[in-house]
Structures are given as C-alpha cells and as structure tokens.
C-alpha cells in the first residue's frame, strides 16, 4: 500500500459560470434553455483536462501565473467544487489550508475559536485538546487566549490561525499560499514549521509562486497554465523555467 495513490485526479474539467446582468439574467432563467443567443460566452473553463497522481508521503508543488487554475484545482481535490467532467479520488482526511482562520468568530475567545476552527478543518475535540498547549505556545498569545479575538491585533489573529492549522497532523495537506503572516520572527518560525510538516508523513500539495520554497520542499513540481498542467513532473527545473516563461508572458499582456 506504500506506493498507493492517495490522490488521483482524472481528466478534470471545471467550468465557472460567468455572471449575467440582472434583467438579462432573469430573462435567461425563463427562456435561456430554449433560446440562448449565439456567441455569448456563459462559462469560463477554469480547469481543462487536468490529471494528477500523488503517492503517499509525496510532496508536490504546483506553480503557474495568476489565474492558471492552481487554487481551483486544490478546491476540487478538497471537494469544494464538483468537477463537471472527470473523477477525483482521495484516500484519507483532506485538509485544505487556503485561508487561515476559517470560521473565526470575533465574539468567541481564542480557545473557543481553536475548537471551532479545528472542527471545521476536520479534527475532533480530543485532537484539538491534545495540541492546545502547542497552539498556545507557538502562537505566543499568552493570556489573551481567554479573551474574545475581537480584542486581538490582526497579527495575533493570523498567528493563532496559523498555529492551529500547522499543529494539526493532517493526512492529505493542501497548502495554498499562506506562508507569510505576522512579524519577521514569526514568518521564519512558520516557514520552519511548514518544512517540518512537509518532511513528516503527510502527503502534501503546495501551491506557491516562490521557486526557492518549492525547490527546497518538493519531490515533484508541476507548472499550470490556462487550466492545464503543462509540464510532466519529471524534471523540476523544467517546471520552474516554464513558470518563469508563462508569468513573464502574462505580465507582458497586462502592460
């Protein structure tokens, strides 16, 4: 079972609806199915036939210019978006770290938010309880942990959120660009923490724009462009080069 694929993505296609205008949209509801004007684009194809296989314990990096579909791909793997075509199979508990502090409630205390956020990320009360000392120590929040997080500075909130997420022991971890929060010292500690998590048993997919980070952490790196994976993952340097080429190209277009 060691070599088993824990994440298997087969030929995923995902379309996003383009929002229609008010009255036009109302009209479309009643008549759209029968009389759709020719030539109007109603959908944007975010993922166009993406396939991916991740083995247990592997660390995968995904790069790509803005809008390439990286975050969307992670959300499909996490189960947030159901693909329009294709299949996603995952084995084990998937934890997506896209936004820190999902579901944080200002009027609840730090402790209460730890349990709430932990449960949203898929961990039981006992699991959160077990790592509570680590969370408090790592975040460096001290006695404020018993205060409503409304009284926290934004840095404190971010530190608490990161501490919860990074002290959990996930099986399949999807990380979407959340690496820099808090002051310089905390950024350094969180980088180290991510490295620890990645070097542990977890299977990880990291989406990042930082070549250095991915070169350090990842076994395989893929590059995405316009909803497709454009490199084959055998040579990481090829993916980095492709990333540089494509992001240069897309930045040129915006000038």
């Amino acid at each position, binding site marked *: 079972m060691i070599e088993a694929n824990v994440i298997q993505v087969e030929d995923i296609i995902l379309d996003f609806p383009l929002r229609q205008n008010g009255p036009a949209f109302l009209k479309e509801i009643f008549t759209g199915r029968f009389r759709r004007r020719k030539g109007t684009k109603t959908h944007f194809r975010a993922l166009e036939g993406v396939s991916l296989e991740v083995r247990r314990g592997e660390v995968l990096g995904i790069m790509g210019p803005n809008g390439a579909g990286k975050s969307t791909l992670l959300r499909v793997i996490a*189960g947030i*978006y*159901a693909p329009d075509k294709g299949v996603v199979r995952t084995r084990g508990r998937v934890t997506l770290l896209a936004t820190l502090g999902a579901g944080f409630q200002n009027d609840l205390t730090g402790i209460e938010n730890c349990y709430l956020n932990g449960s949203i990320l898929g961990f039981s009360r006992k699991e959160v309880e077990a790592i509570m000392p680590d969370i408090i120590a790592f975040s460096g929040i001290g006695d404020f942990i018993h205060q409503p997080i409304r009284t926290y500075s934004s840095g404190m909130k971010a530190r608490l959120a990161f501490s919860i997420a990074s002290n959990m022991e996930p099986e399949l971890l999807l990380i979407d660009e959340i690496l820099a929060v808090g002051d310089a010292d905390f950024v350094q500690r969180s980088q180290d923490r991510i490295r620890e998590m990645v070097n542990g048993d977890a299977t990880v997919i990291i989406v990042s724009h930082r070549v250095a980070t991915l070169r350090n952490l990842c076994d395989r790196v893929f590059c995405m462009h316009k909803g497709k994976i454009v490199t084959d993952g055998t040579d990481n340097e090829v993916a980095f080069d492709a990333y540089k080429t494509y992001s240069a190209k897309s930045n040129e277009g915006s000038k």
Partner: protein
Amino acid sequence: MADSGSTYAHEARPPFFSAPYHVVKNLRNHSNVLKHFIGRDLKVNYHGAVLGYAWSMLEPLAFTAIFYVVFVILRGSPDDQLPLKIMIGILMYNCFSKTFAATTKALTRNAGLIRQVYLPREIFVVSSAGFQIMQLALSLLILIPLMWIWSIEPTAHLLFLIPAMMGVCSVGMGLGFMLAPLQARVRDTEQVVNILNRAGFFLSGVFYSIDYIPDEFIDIYTLNPVAVFVELARVAVYGEMGKLTWDDFGYSSGVAIFLMLFGMMIFKRYERSVVKYL
C-alpha cells in the same frame, strides 16, 4: 470505517433517492462541527448581554404581559387565557418562520466558509435549524412559571411539546433544504420566503386558536401542518385535545417527514452545482 482508510470519490451524478441516507451519514461523521456551529450561534447571539440566555425566556414573558394589557385589560376579552395562547402561538410560529428563513439562506450566509473549506453543505442547513429549535426549547421554559401563574395543571400531554417543536422545525427545514440551492442561484428567493412567512403567520393560528375556526372550515384549516403543530403545543399545555384529532397529528407528521426527505433529495441534487455561484 476509520477516516484514514476511506476513499472519497466525486461521482459524476449526485445521488437522488439515497440522498437522505447520505445526509444522515455526513451529519454523523461531522457531528462535531454541527455541535460547534450551534454552540457558536447560541454563544454569539447573547454575547455581551448581562442576562444572557435568560433573554430567550424574558422576551416571551414580556410578550405575554403586553398581550395581557392589550387584550384582557384594554379590550376586555372574556378569555383570560388568551395572552398565554398567543404567546405559545408566537413562539411556535417564530420557530417555523425563522427556521425556514435561516435554512433558505444557509448557503449564501456561509458562502465565505463554503469556498474555503470542504464541509458537507447540509451541515449549514441543519445547524441553522438546530439553533432555532434550541432557542425554542429555551424559550418554552418560561411556560413553567406561566402555567403556575395561570394555575394550569401539568399533564402527560406536555410531552406533545416535543413532536410540536420537531414538527415546526422540520417543516421549516424541509422547505429550506429545497430553497437553499435556489437562493444561492437567485438571491430574490429570500424575499419571497419573507412574504410567505408573513402570510403564513395569519394562516397558522398564532393570534387565534383552533376554537375560533368554524366547524365547516376545520378540515381545510388543518391541512396546514404548521397550524396543527402550533395547536399541538397548546394541547400540550392545556392537556386536552379539543378540536384537534389524531388524524390531524398523523397527517401533519407525515407531511413534515415527507418535506424533510424530499428536501434533502432536492438539496443534494443541486447543492454541488450552485457552489460555483456563491
């Protein structure tokens, strides 16, 4: 099966008839989150209030006092039980209307969270409904002192409060299950729900009890399951069935269960595709 060994695959077609089974299974697997959401809503609702949860009871108590002044003292109504009957009606109907409105908006209200983390989306609907039924249960505690004041003997009929509460809540949640995906697609839905709730208020025996309905209209009146469950709560307090029959109770329970099951089927059929619109 343990979490770590499970395989999760997105099927091309969501289930339809087996949807209630999947909903129950997901809720059991995520009961932790469900409890946290309901607890969070309860805590946040009375956050910072000195009297806290006591407000759930003080509010209906104040209502009763107001109705007493308006109906018994000012209008000289011969029925001095009227304030209590109206209060029960309001609590029960509010639970229905708030559940209906909150579950309809469950997806749009939690859009941020839904886009960030994966949770079975039925959790948002069920936790909204769970919060409302907890609120109702707290509020109904005020019946203890009020029944004492009105010297109403408690009877075994009080147990009817449980199906009555579950009844109003499940009708609201069943309808909410159906409309939540539509609300995600077309935000006008919640406005329509507000109007329906307002209309239902006058059709569900809130300001009058079933005794005021002429006999020839009773059969039509009891077609409305919410009206039956509202009346059932009064039956529970006063300890006599009055004009309500067991048939009404059976029929309304059937409607409530049907709405829940059918609501879940509709919800599971459409929730996946509407996430993109959130």
